[in-house]
């Protein structure tokens, strides 16, 4: 049975010069008989069509501004499509960004009732679930406090908790994993997997491709408001990553004079430090990070991590794990940190991320480049597509057992 139907939906936004227009200006413009102001059109969605069956768990991927949030807004009926029609069947628990459906001036208790009412529950129904909601969110102490005073984590926990406890037929989740601590994120993902097992329909939007890959069996890739691919999650993610990142051996960063610490360049090199365009899986791999420290900082730590394109973190190394008091923090200037990874990783594509932080502040935390670790020339090139993480150089030995006695 169908759960979601989207039929040829397009959404146009009119961009104006200002954030808003005043009545006075509009009346004056009407009196002068000219238009209010020149308008530019922006199509956030173009002719998007797809259907989701009951119980399907579908991911929505694509870069910022690709139309993911607009699509969810159309599905959640927050905004009206310019063309086409979108339908959902049953009760929809939607979590769009942080704190869906909360009124900042209302306290936690009032917001639970308000949100429940918006999701279609009677007061009595909400009262019955009230304790569960509060407990899952862990905000017992804050019930009488206006939610505007909540931390972003508390806010989000409460929002997710309400949405999770109204027994929705369809769960729409947008980027909730961007905030909240690891423990809560795990609980959220667990709850979503549980929804999936109970046969509820889940629509999940996230930049965390790993989470999408773990939860969703199908993913839709949106680009410039259009569906680029709709199919099995791994295939969609592959195509998306192919289109997103030109693979590179090194990246340089523009100067940002107002930052106390900034990246200068990150590159994939050999053990000697020379950049490599085609690193091979059977050779040691060096990640070379150059960065600039502009002011003295205490206990600066550098971290690199590698993720597969499925979003699985295969490696994460902190400078502080081996050198608890590296000098780079206390002395301003240009620094180079190199990590040598022994040849154990599988051939394939990897996303390299770098983070630089002090105990109090995060200066850099980003995915800097995507590179391919090539199989050695004597190995089949198709081996890149296997889904594995390590390839530590195993050896096969095959012998005929025919001339030996059995047993």
């Amino acid at each position: 049975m169908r759960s979601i139907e989207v039929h040829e939906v397009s959404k146009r936004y009119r961009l104006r010069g200002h954030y808003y227009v005043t009545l006075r200006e509009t009346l004056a413009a009407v009196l002068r008989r000219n238009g209010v102001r020149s308008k530019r059109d922006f199509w956030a969605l173009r002719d998007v069509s797809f259907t989701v069956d009951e119980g399907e768990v579908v991911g929505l991927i694509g870069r910022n501004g690709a139309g993911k949030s607009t699509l969810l807004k159309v599905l959640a009926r927050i905004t009206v499509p310019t063309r086409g029609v979108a339908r959902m069947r049953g009760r929809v628990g939607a979590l769009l960004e942080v704190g869906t459906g909360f009124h900042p001036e209302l306290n936690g208790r009032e917001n639970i009732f308000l949100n429940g009412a918006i999701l279609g529950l009677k007061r009595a129904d909400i009262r019955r679930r009230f304790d569960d909601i509060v407990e899952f969110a862990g905000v017992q102490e804050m019930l009488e406090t206006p939610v505007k005073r909540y931390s972003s984590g508390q806010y989000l926990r409460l929002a997710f908790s309400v949405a999770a406890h109204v027994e929705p037929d369809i769960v729409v989740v947008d980027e909730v994993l961007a905030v909240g601590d690891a423990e809560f994120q795990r609980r959220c993902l667990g709850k979503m997997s549980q929804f999936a097992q109970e046969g509820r329909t889940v629509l999940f939007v996230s930049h965390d491709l790993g989470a999408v890959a773990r939860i969703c069996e199908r993913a839709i890739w949106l680009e410039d408001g259009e569906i680029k691919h709709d199919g099995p999650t791994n295939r969609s993610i592959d195509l998306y990553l192919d289109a997103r990142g030109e693979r590179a051996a090194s990246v340089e960063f523009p100067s940002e004079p107002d930052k106390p610490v900034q990246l200068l360049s990150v590159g994939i090199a050999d053990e000697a430090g020379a950049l490599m365009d085609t690193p091979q899986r059977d050779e040691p791999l060096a990640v070379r990070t150059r960065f600039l420290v502009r002011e003295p900082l205490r206990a600066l730590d550098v971290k690199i991590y590698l993720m597969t394109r499925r979003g699985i973190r295969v490696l994460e190394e902190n400078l502080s794990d081996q050198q608890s008091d590296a000098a780079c923090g206390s002395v301003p200037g240009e620094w180079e940190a190199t990590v040598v990874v022994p040849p154990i990783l599988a051939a394939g594509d990897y996303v390299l991320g770098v983070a630089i932080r002090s105990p109090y502040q995060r200066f850099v935390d980003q995915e800097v480049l995507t590179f391919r670790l090539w199989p050695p020339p004597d190995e089949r090139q198709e081996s890149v597509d296997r889904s594995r993480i390590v390839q530590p150089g195993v050896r096969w030995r095959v012998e005929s057992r025919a001339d030996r006695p059995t047993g």
Partner: protein
Amino acid sequence: MTRGADQVRAETAASGDGASAVRAAGTQPGAGRWLENRAVDGWLPRLDLAEVWASREIAVVLALRNITIRYKQTFFGVAWALLQPLAAVGIFTLIFGRLAQLPSEGIPYPVFVYAGLAIWFYFSQSATLASESLAQYRELVTKVYFPRLLAPVAAIVPGLVDLAISLLAVGVFMAIYGVAPTGAIVFLPLWLVALVILTFGVGTWLSALNVQYRDVRNALAFLLQLWFFASPIVYGSSLLEGSWGFLLALNPLVGLLEGFRWSLVGAPFPGPEALVSLATGIVVVASGIVYFGRAQRRFADLI
């Protein structure tokens, strides 16, 4: 229309036996109704009044909130609801009643002006609250769907508490000045309902305009000042006779105030010009709902 009717049935089923209905929804996902979001074609807005009714719980939560803020400390809440009109009654009685000798249709001036002010305070306060209702619920409007019409609806409810207190106070004034109610008092609820409907109509206009144009708030303060003196609150309609009376009656509050005073304090029955008020009142309410319905497509994009 069919969809609306289904919805109401679903609602009644749920409210009849909340627990089992919810469990049923939980055990059979997808059994619910289709919620549709369709591109708009045509000039007239689609207004699903059945859906508005089914979602009334939202208006209740929002209205309760406004009431609890106002009456959190019961004493000050009630005192405020009394002091404001009492001060106005005192000043107006002195200036317009004694000094300017404005006509009050043969009714003691304080009783006359208090009756008018009870209506006016409800109208102006609720209209102001309604004008800000959508802008105030920005977080909700941009993040979740609910029938937008509920925002101005919730805004005109809390004022009813003040109105009730005012009506009691007018009763006390009537007793003090020896004004006995007539049989016409049975029609009092009719005028109150008309007042709420008119306030709702004005509120829909203002709330929708306030989303699109941020200077509505300033314009409204000025408009309400003009409106106050254009309405027979501090003076009786007999001040303006003949064709001027008909022109003035384009203000829908004119007929309403006259009818209300006729029912409550025994003022003369409204003249034929009250029909003009009725007509403009209907136009204001109908056009307000249509304008709101058309404007609400843009709310989430504009706020």
